[in-house]
């Protein structure tokens, strides 16, 4: 696979390390953004031609609502991917575990602020657990999170069968409310994507993380600590997944341990579509807004066409294949 190859072959990448950097990255980001925007527009146009009433505030509400939790999770997954951590397959566990802790604390009558903070803390603890196994076991993150993913689900099934957020709680009221005409849960997602996008591109911390993802050997040679970066990224990404859990439980009044499974694919697809390559080191988080928006529009369009929702799985899967195919083709061409 790609990551080990680059790690084992520092020689060819070194000469072209310096020149392209920022320019190449932003132009690739722009191209990814334009491509997705164009495809999204196409989907919208086709749907609107068949059903003119597609262009309505109802559609906007449906899409923005669907985007919220998936978008936050995509930021979490994106951080893991861009830093060269390959993938976190245990994201659904971080999501639901955090949501469960949050509603349990709310149910126990603790102040909202405590319960809301407990979500990201739980997620961070889960991410750190993954990070510790990966760093100190020197194990591949995909395998580790595959194991903790199904092990974690089993642990949750032992812990609880279903969880409900107290209907009178402030968090629940937040989940049902709207700001500027759009669902409350939509806005934290937008803010998070924008802040992460800026932080990754413009802070020293962000650039280091991307450098580690692009070429771990070179980053190490420059004195960056790989274990510290890995732990920070998995912990931080876990905290963000925990935050997604807080948003999740504010809109899902009742959920089961398995409820996170449906997010796995759409989140990975959003990250890859946004041009955050699985080989690490490149991508722009702002594009996530477009890719998550596009993927969230598919099920709504499907409903307008009157097709059964199973077809949205077919389209999402097919699009992912198409996107990574095009991405692979482009990378291969530019490598020549």
């Amino acid at each position, binding site marked *: *696979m*790609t990551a*080990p190859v680059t*790690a084992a072959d520092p020689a060819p990448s070194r000469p072209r390390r310096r020149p392209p950097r920022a320019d190449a990255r932003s132009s690739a980001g722009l191209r990814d953004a334009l491509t997705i925007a164009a495809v999204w527009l196409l989907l919208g146009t086709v749907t609107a031609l068949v059903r003119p009433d597609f262009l309505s505030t109802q559609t906007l509400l449906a899409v923005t609502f669907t985007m919220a939790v998936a978008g936050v999770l995509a930021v979490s997954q994106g951080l893991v991917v861009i830093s060269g951590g*390959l*993938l976190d397959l245990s994201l659904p566990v971080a999501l639901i575990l955090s949501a469960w802790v949050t509603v349990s604390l709310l149910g126990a009558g603790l102040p909202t602020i405590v319960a809301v903070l407990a979500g990201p803390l739980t997620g961070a603890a889960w991410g750190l657990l993954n990070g510790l*196994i*990966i760093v100190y*076991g*020197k*194990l*591949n*993150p*995909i*395998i*580790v999170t*595959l*194991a*903790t993913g*199904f*092990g974690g*689900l*089993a*642990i949750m*099934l*032992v812990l609880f069968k279903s969880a409900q957020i107290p209907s009178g709680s402030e968090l629940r009221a937040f989940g049902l409310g709207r700001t500027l005409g759009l669902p409350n849960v939509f806005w934290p997602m937008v803010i998070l994507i924008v802040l992460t996008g800026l932080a990754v591109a413009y802070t020293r911390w962000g650039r280091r993380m991307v450098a580690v993802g692009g070429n*771990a050997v070179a980053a190490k040679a420059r004195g960056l600590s*790989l274990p510290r970066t*890995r732990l920070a990224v998995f912990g931080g990404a876990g905290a963000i997944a925990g935050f997604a859990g807080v948003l999740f439980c504010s809109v899902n009044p009742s959920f089961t341990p398995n409820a996170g499974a449906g997010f796995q*694919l759409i989140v*990975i*697809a959003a990250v*890859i579509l946004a041009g955050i390559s*699985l*080989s690490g080191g490149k991508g722009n988080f702002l594009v996530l807004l477009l890719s998550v928006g596009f993927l969230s529009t598919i099920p709504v369009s499907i409903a307008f066409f009157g097709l*059964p929702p*199973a*077809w*949205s*799985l*077919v*389209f*999402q*899967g*097919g*699009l*992912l*294949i198409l996107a*990574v*195919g*095009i*991405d*692979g*083709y482009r*990378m*291969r061409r530019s490598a020549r």
Partner: protein
Amino acid sequence: MTVDIDAGRVPLTRRLLANLNGPVGSIALTLAVTLIIGAVWVGPRYFSASNIEIVGTSIAIPLIVGVLASFALLAGVVDLSIGSMVGFGAVAFNQLVGAGMDPWQAAGLTLLTGVAVGAVNAYVIVGLGAEPLAVTLGMLTLLRGLCQAIVIEAPPTTLVEPLYDLTQGSIGSFPTLLLIAIGLTLVAAGFVGKTRMGRAIRAVGGDARAAGRVGIPVARVRVIALIVSAVGAALGGILYVGQLASASNILGTGLEFQIYAALMIGGYSITRGGVGNPIGALLGLLVVGAITNILNVQFIDPDYLDIIVALILLGAVLLDRIRGGDSFE
């Protein structure tokens, strides 16, 4: 793996010892420990004919699917879509037979869909150079969506007698299908270990560039491996219909992870090609099957099974890493 290159010159005992030292050795030991725990805790009935039949029947199909999918792992192109392909193959076969088609014809068509799915995976991965994990994750979703789009009402019941006897029957007290699966495993092990093609596959997975330099057709090997993987899954789907006489739209969900967890316990890697042996796949599935069975016959909550399998999986890859295998950074 370096040991095998001069396998011809090393004395047999040395080779056996080297094998014991490797992943196959530690998984054999794990299996032995599992069986001892079973013998002590469950008692002699753990090894009763009916119990062997139960374990055998439940791991035979995953073994066939796993051994054929292991070629893709070996060639360094993981195929996550096998679980959905098992489901899609089963749904296709069941619906076709349910609609009155001749079972042989239906089976042929189903295997052809496997070829088609494998070819699409191969085109995008090998032809376009995309990440196998991402491509096959997309295929996993796509095929599951198709299963749900096809099976909307209750699926037809299609008891194909010869297929039922094959998948549920036994010779003496040994499940027929498991015998076939073990036979397939041994053939695959011989193929991988002894033939030039087998060595080529391992070389492609180990270091594609080096393999290309010595004249191995890397692309062709990977294409064939991906098609074999998908066809194996389609075959697994047909066999499940034989065993269950029907196919719901969730059949095979998560099977890819169960199979790969067992394969990784047996010494394969989903992130690195060139390592693993079909015998390891057999032993890995036996370990998981044996533990599942201990929990089953003791009537213990199956949730604990996944926790145990996760721990063993982490232990196995850690052991492999300490031994000098796949190290992340």
